[in-house]
């Protein structure tokens, strides 16, 4: 059994018209090994963020379950920190206080001094130095997500859940923060489950990429291995022949096959 096991998870939502239920995705099953970076790619509506929330314990599955280190997940917890697409920082706290809130929760026995030094280390690590006394509204999207990353990494969770973390950040900043994330992940070797639309981001960061068919009633179609040696960088990765091959495979999948496979599966009554 893998470190994090997604065990045949199905999710239904009540229909918007109030009649019956809508299946978002069905029987999704895969495992993530300790220290592995797995990314899920799929169109909007395939339920990938819902799956991430189920792993986080913020939503419940309709069938199946999630098992972390042999124990079934029964709600949110500090062993699974989320980096949210909309940052989800407390707007009445400064950047520093946002990180400190998580650090205090993670290490309740520490003294104020210890907590302060530790928070400052993460502030410096993500390049927030000088901006840590500002509130989130005074920061750019990129800076806000740096706070989000620092908050998540600082608690040293068993699993890091990244929910389209760079979707609301401008393209130029996105690249910079992706490399920062790579650096932090290389140092900490967290187990990561990420959800994204961005094919290049998925290839750059991941060990494996899971492809979802279109929703509703989405399935896990296949899992690709990214056989590009690390350390990687945005500048050099595009020259790898493997990069082009993976990229066209995924884009073909998203443009055509994601729809076809789903139609086939439904026709078979699977």
């Amino acid at each position: 059994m893998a470190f994090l096991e997604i065990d045949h998870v199905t999710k239904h939502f009540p229909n918007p018209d109030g009649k019956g239920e809508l299946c978002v995705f069905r029987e999704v099953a895969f495992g993530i090994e300790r220290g592995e970076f797995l990314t899920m790619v799929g169109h909007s509506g395939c339920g990938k963020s819902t799956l991430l929330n189920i792993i986080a314990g913020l939503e419940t599955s309709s069938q199946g379950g999630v098992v972390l280190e042999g124990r079934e997940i029964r709600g949110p917890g500090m062993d699974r920190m989320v980096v949210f697409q909309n940052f989800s920082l407390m707007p009445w706290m400064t950047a520093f206080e946002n990180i400190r809130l998580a650090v205090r929760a993670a290490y309740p026995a520490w003294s104020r001094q210890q907590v302060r030094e530790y928070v400052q280390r993460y502030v410096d690590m993500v390049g927030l130095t000088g901006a840590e006394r500002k509130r989130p509204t005074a920061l750019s999207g990129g800076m806000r997500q740096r706070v989000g990353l620092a908050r998540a990494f600082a608690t040293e969770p068993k699993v890091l859940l990244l929910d389209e973390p760079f979707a609301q950040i401008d393209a130029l900043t996105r690249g910079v923060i992706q490399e920062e994330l790579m650096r932090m992940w290389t140092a900490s070797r967290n187990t990561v489950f990420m959800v994204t639309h961005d094919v290049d981001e998925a290839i750059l960061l991941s060990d494996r990429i899971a492809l979802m068919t279109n929703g509703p009633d989405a399935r896990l179609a296949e899992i690709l291995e990214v056989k590009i040696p690390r350390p990687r960088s945005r500048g050099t990765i595009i020259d790898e022949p493997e990069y082009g091959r993976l990229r066209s495979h995924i884009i073909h999948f998203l443009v055509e096959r994601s729809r076809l496979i789903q139609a086939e599966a439904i026709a078979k009554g699977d």
Partner: protein
Amino acid sequence: MGRGRQRVIIYSVLLCAGFLFLWQLASAPAAGGKAQGLPGPLAVGWTAWEMGSNPFYDNGPNDKGIGLQLLFSLGRLAIGYTVAALVAILLGVVLGLSPTLYRAVNPYVQILKPISPLAWMPLFLYTIKNAGMAAVLVVFMSSLWPILANTAFGVATIKRDYLNVSAILQLSWLGRLFRVILPAAAPAIVAGLRISMGSAWVAIVAAEMLIGGTGIGYFVWNEWNNLALSSVIFAILAIGMVGVLLDFGLGRLSRIVAYAE
């Protein structure tokens, strides 16, 4: 902006001067007769000077300085308002966190809210048989509903994201209350505090007219019985000034707790 502001000040001063002038004209004694109308601004000004120069004297039950009377009123206000705020915020948090409870309790709150706090006075006098406490309870009743309604609304509309974060961080109940729920709902809560401070200050004056004894409300009524109308007018002005100061303090507080999303 500098010029706009200057104009505002000029208009304000002119309005005040015009009002005082007309007031003085209207209250001028008829030729040869004794003053029958309201005391004019000069008479009130003289009273203000007299009362303001010795505001805290105490010569027995019916003769106390206006400052002392205001302090009596403020004391009642402070007790009733503080207790009401504690009760209403606590209850409001509970209701705000539970949509079911909120909907179950809301009809009763809607019925109780529009009742004049003074209407409770006979019941309070009958049950606790202490006029001073009854006045404090009137303040309590007038402050309770706006704070309760605003707190429940503020807590119920906290963004799901903040609660998700506090769930992931597994904050204790107290940690969640003080670090997330109260700061998130603070702008709404302080708005409620501000509204109820206004209505409590209105209510205490009326309550003190009924119960007698001490307080600025009683002072106004007592001066009316003495036909000391210039004292009445000065007391009215003093009530307004204290109200402005109280609101100013809460306005400061609302700026401190405000946040942009």
